[in-house]
């Protein structure tokens, strides 16, 4: 009898006590994220996927000097130089193997032309290894820099309302 009373007491006295924590959290802001609809903002110094800068007039900053590749501890960078129409040096080929890369940021530090930076992008998922080798075209920032604002809004609306992007 005593034991029955004890069990009933547990249900009505101890369980609510335990649920207090649960109910408290019901009204708290969740610490998880609605990924991939929402993304965690990265700190300004986060070292994500690399991007290659341009000058204001659109010329690539990278001159393919090879110092990033020399500094790279993972040997993830490969490049081949060529001569452009003006007779200047630029990269014919600039590849980073993101699977090898350890995102140490040495390339960014070594760069004498302030051409390579580690950006905020951290989402890497592909179904084959070759796709992790990113080339110059993937990394160069677009020129002109800013997107069309209307396009950006359109993309956002589609993202929020879950319309699948057929163009991709």
């Amino acid at each position, binding site marked *: 009898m005593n034991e029955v009373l004890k069990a009933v007491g547990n249900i009505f006295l101890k369980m609510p006590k335990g649920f207090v924590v649960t109910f408290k959290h019901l009204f708290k802001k969740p610490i998880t994220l609605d990924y991939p609809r929402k993304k965690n903002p990265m700190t300004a110094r986060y070292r994500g996927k690399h991007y290659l800068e341009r000058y204001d007039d659109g010329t690539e900053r990278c*001159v*393919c*000097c*090879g*110092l990033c590749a*020399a500094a790279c501890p993972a040997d993830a960078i490969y490049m*081949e*130089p*060529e*001569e452009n129409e*003006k*007779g*200047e*040096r630029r990269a014919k080929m600039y590849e980073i193997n993101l699977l090898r890369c350890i995102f140490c940021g040495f390339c960014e530090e070594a760069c*004498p*032309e302030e051409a390579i930076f580690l950006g905020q992008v951290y989402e890497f998922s592909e179904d084959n290894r070759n796709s992790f080798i990113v080339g110059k075209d993937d990394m160069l920032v677009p020129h002109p820099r800013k997107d069309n604002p209307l396009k950006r809004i359109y993309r956002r609306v589609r993202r929020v309302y879950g319309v699948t992007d057929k163009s991709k």
Partner: protein
Amino acid sequence: MAEATKKDMPTETAENMVTLTINGRETTVPKGTTVLQAAKELGVHIPTFCWHPKLKPVGACRMCYVEVEKMPKLQVSCALEVMDGMVVHTDSDTVKQGRKAIIEFILLNHPLDCPTCDKGGECDLQNLTFAHGVDDSRFEFQKYRFVDEGMTTTFDDRRIGPEIILNRNRCILCYKCVRANKEAFGEYDLGVYERGSIAEINAAPGEQVDNPFSGNLVEICPVGALTNSDWRYKIRVWLTSTTPSICNYTSSGINTLFFKENHHNKIYRVTSRPSDDIDDGWLPDVTRYGYQIVNSPDRLTTPLVKKEGKQVEATWEEALEIIGKRFGEIKERLGGVCVGALVSPGLDNASLHAASRLMRVGFKSNNIDFRGDYRYLPESSESPFMRLCSRPFKIADIDDSDVIVTFGSDLIREHANEYLRIRKAFNFGNARIFAVNPYQTKSADVSSLELVYLPGTEESVVNGICLAAIEDNLVDAKRGEKFKLKTPTKSSAEAAKVSGVDRESLRTVAEALAEGKKITFFTGEIITRSRQRDLIASALINLHRLFGLKGRAQMSALARYANSKGAEKLGLLPNPRTVVVDKLRGLWGEYPESPARNTDAMMALIKKEEIKGFLILGSNPVMLYPDREFVKEGIEKLDFLVVADLFETETTELADVVLPLASWAEYEGYYVNLEGRTQKAARAVKPIGQAKPGYEIASLIGEALDPEMFQNEQQIHSEVRQLLELDSVIAYPDDFLEVKADTDGSQGDYNLPLYIIDDWHHSGHLTEKAPSLANFASEPYIEIPPQLASELKIAHGDSVRVESEVGKVILPARISEHTQNNVVLVPRNFSSSNVTSLLMRKKRVDRVKISKVDE
């Protein structure tokens, strides 16, 4: 510099030695040494920019500051001669401060564009700034910039030659390039213009830097002011590794270094590997850029087999099966003597020996030769010319010779390295130099006297020199009497008249030869290519005997190709010397007794259809043999022709089986240079496609004929070593030789002598495939002396019809800068020129007539 002072230096006697102290260590060096050299000998490193071991010092950069006690200021060690009791400090605080200041000063206007500079990573200025410089500049003003009108780039790169790119902003004005150009190469196409802070290095007004040694200027530049398009924006130097090798285009065996990258299996450039005995660290352009054929996309990569009149790709197994079957048939049906072989003297020892073994053991035939581009070759290996060829010769001995005679040789075109040696002797020594040629050459600018004889009168010149010596009692009269018995020419005046050289000049040479204590006398290609080479050689041997040159002269006929000397020593001739034959018999247990035929004889027999099968390794007789029709008709009649080469050539077109040959950079090979020195060319890259080295091809063909014939590399090398140990010098005969004058008959209208030459930047038939060399010259041309051109109203670039008794070609004209007398020159290096179709193998001097093509 080292050489320069050593020359003037007195012998090392006690009173000529100076004792000084460097960094507290005492050392004794000969008088006239500079402090820099003395320190170098002690192992003390002093940084420099403008100092070069082979040039005179100028003290332009002032990087080599040292502190000398009792001298008030820092001293420039590269230009400071040692004095007795000198106390030198190279590492004191004052010196360090001085160096820092100099680096800061040099960097005032230096653009610091290292990321885009091709020199980055191997730049002296980078290294020395890192070692001795400061990390900041106090210069607050705008750096001085050279800006060209209409320039579109941020750098100031301008092309000053077909290959060379100049960036004046990077230049630190060490003058090394200008000095080397002037002192070492005798070229004046580069100079310093303006004064003070705006002084600039530039090409001479209206000129291009296109001399045959221009590549060296890029190599010695301490910064990236001079770069070349060969290495421009290709690869960073720290990504490459080096392989020591030697030059395959010149016979000196110039030491080179390949810069290669293993992942790409590609060579990126060639630089020098200085060796004082051979090349002094200078490379001719053909050596520097000629490597590009190794990377060429046109290379043959698979065997080709002729099926129904068309060459189609095949595997090695198929090709070898066909070769084995067809050669086997010919051998069985007609005997091995119906097979011949022609090999290239550019192949390594092992390949040559393997080919020789294939012919002599596999086919039991003596039909093998390596001289595919000479006519009327000497039959016997002990003919006067072969004796002359076999004489020892030392390149380094040119330096301290007091009389140098170059006979029948346009040096820069065929022995560029020896030309630089002679120039050194001319500049730094007190040598009397004589250039004896049938036409005026650029190479003769270092000679004290240039003798130009009429084409085809070589033996009269030599006899003239001898007779002038006898007449003026410069030599032993008794020997003179004996000499006179053997020569048809009676007096030097007569010889002078025949040869067109004035008697005074002949006498001057005779005098020099009689007085000279150390004489270098050599003959070049004009003699070697002459049909009468034996006659000329006899005359020269007589001269040697008459003047008693034994012991005080080196007299030789220089080999032309990378391994010509090796081929001679290994018995690649149809009739090798008895010692070689005995050795080969000992090695193989057999030696064929069949008749031996040289190139001409083989070609004649092919035409008579007595030789049915033929193997050609790396040679291109259709293009290079001096009678194109003769060779081509013959080769077309062959039953079976196998050709191995790097590229598709005129000869491979006619072949039944074409095999891809590996180049000298693709396998380890040993080559014998013109001194008889064996040198190794290491393997730099893997053979392209399915290409195989010559020895492997020869061994595989042997195996296809008879499985027991196969030899591996070690076996071949051990046989080669034993053969090279044999003494190759053939003694001169004991008496004067008969010299009968010989001339061609009259050739009617055709009276203009034609000489086939190598272009300044080319050698043999392969270099036109190298893009950098093609930048210098890619089209055939005919070089016409100016007064003849004006007579015929031919301007530079006009089409000229060149006709001989047998052929006719049309070539663009080029007005010669150096040749004044009546000869025309045509380079043989361009396959589109067809120049050999003008030649007849029986002629001593080829004569043509030229006329302008009216458009």
